[in-house]
């Protein structure tokens, strides 16, 4: 299957700190890949790196990004890709809609094709229908819509130009259960109908399992595990993934004591020398302290842990 996006050894940071280290992954056609991790692990940063929306003080230190098999690392052509071939949706829908303009106006603004007004209108009504929104929404203002409807409007804006990749940064975190459920199903349908791939960032690994084909687990700026969604959830290999799933209340009997992860997430200014999870890991070995584990292919999983092989980071 065609490769839509490839990140090769991407590191992001500046002279003082490294926010992302050696990020490697591929997203194929019609795939939903979730990046899972806790606050500060770098998952949102990864999305921002792909379309060059990093904060001013951070930049790509090395590595390459390929979109549809073309290298885009220098971001010279990024204006043509952003909003057109790669769409993005965010967490708080109300923050990303301009309160002064109608939904119709805002979606129209997103259309990049040079077509006349009549065609644009038709296109907008069509997409509103597909999002499950009534045609009246065209004339309404953001504050007149519920959170779920706002998010659907934003998705409409993100995919109206038929992108091949959608970046979703925690789009359902701020929404109700039933509303979120609807949005997730909508996204799944879009993948089938529009030949779309999605990178879905979330802190909720159960949600990741529900929506995606593959899960990527990140910790302290590094990918620690990657594999089929169900397999990762049911049989986590990396100690961090194991502990993460071990925090979920649904894995316990009523009121059983939840096994928590001791210690704190390391700050970027104070990263451990070796494996970033070393201080909190219950399987730690001597080699983990000063060496960063390299990529290992283990039972159809990509994993970075010395437990599964003594391969160092090059």
């Amino acid at each position, binding site marked *: 299957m065609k490769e839509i996006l490839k990140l090769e050894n991407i590191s992001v940071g500046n002279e003082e700190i490294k926010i992302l280290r050696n990020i490697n992954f591929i997203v194929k056609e019609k795939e939903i890949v979730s990046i899972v991790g806790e*606050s500060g692990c770098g998952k949102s940063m990864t999305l921002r790196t792909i379309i060059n929306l990093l904060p001013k003080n951070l930049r790509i230190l090395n590595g390459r990004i390929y979109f549809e098999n073309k290298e885009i690392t220098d971001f010279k052509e990024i204006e043509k890709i952003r909003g057109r071939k790669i769409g993005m949706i965010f967490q708080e829908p109300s923050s990303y809609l301009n309160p002064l303009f109608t939904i119709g106006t805002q979606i129209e603004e997103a259309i990049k094709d040079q077509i006349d007004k009549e065609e644009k209108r038709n296109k907008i009504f069509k997409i509103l229908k597909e999002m499950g929104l009534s045609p009246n929404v065209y004339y309404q203002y953001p504050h007149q819509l519920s959170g779920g409807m706002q998010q659907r409007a934003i998705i409409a804006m993100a995919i109206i130009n038929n992108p091949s990749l959608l970046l979703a940064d925690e789009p359902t975190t701020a929404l*109700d*259960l039933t509303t979120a459920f609807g949005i997730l199903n909508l996204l799944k349908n879009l993948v089938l109908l529009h030949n779309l791939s999605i990178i879905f960032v979330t802190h909720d690994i159960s949600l990741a399992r529900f929506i995606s084909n593959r899960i990527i687990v990140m910790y302290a700026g590094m990918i620690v595990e990657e594999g089929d969604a169900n397999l990762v959830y049911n049989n986590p290999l990396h100690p961090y993934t194991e502990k993460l799933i071990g*925090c979920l209340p649904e894995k316990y009997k009523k009121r059983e004591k*939840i*096994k928590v992860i001791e210690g704190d997430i390391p700050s970027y200014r104070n990263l451990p020398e070796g494996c970033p999870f070393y201080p909190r890991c219950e399987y730690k070995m001597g080699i983990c302290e000063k060496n960063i584990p390299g990529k290992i292919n283990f039972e159809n999983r990509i994993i970075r842990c010395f437990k599964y092989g003594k391969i160092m980071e090059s």
Partner: protein
Amino acid sequence: MERLWKVEELSKTYEVKSELKKEKIRVLKNINLEIFKGEIFGLVGESGSGKTTFGKVLLRLIEPDSGKIIYKNIDITNLPEKILRKYRKNFQIIFQDPYKSLNPRLTCGYTIMEGIHEGSKKEKIEKAIELLNLVGIKRENFYKFPHQFSGGERQRIAIARALSTNPEFIVCDEPTSNLDVSIQGQILNLFLELKEKFNLTYLFITHNLKIVKFLADRVGIMFKGEIVEIGKTEEIFENPKHFYTKKLLESKI
């Protein structure tokens, strides 16, 4: 089992002025429910269901429009604030957003001390330090300000504050919704430990069904200001009757 709370036909309406007309939003519609000593009562609903408002109205932090609130056997609905204040120490509340529930201008130690009304200043400080230890915050942090703590730590301080008056009942309003899943586990453990230690009763408000299933003895489902179903947790999950409960359970991810 001793009954702690009985709520009868509790209602609350907000008037919202929008576009030249006054809209009346009925946030709570004739709520009836009971909470018994020692239980964890889970109140489940989505945003707009009124569950957060219910928690605040129960403790009369927001005044109800009609209905009765009975604590143990005392009708506290219309008690003047001066008298109600004497009962307030028995029931406390913990809020959802740890970034907003602490006064940014007060040190965490002082925040906890405010609820302690007895004892000399030295004794109050000692008790506050004890409470901090109980929730896992070291004594060196006594004089720090909220912005110097992480979200999980702030939530712990809020819990310590709730415990400062030796309450027997605590309303927990979505206390883990803004926290990472690993921190959430720690806080849930803490809640259970404290329940054992101090024989606490909780009203646990949340939209997260998995937490409710894990924690609660009984569950109430709220939809648009009404309680549509109440029952034992296991029964509700295995045998939901109301269509909304069924819809909620279907959205389980």
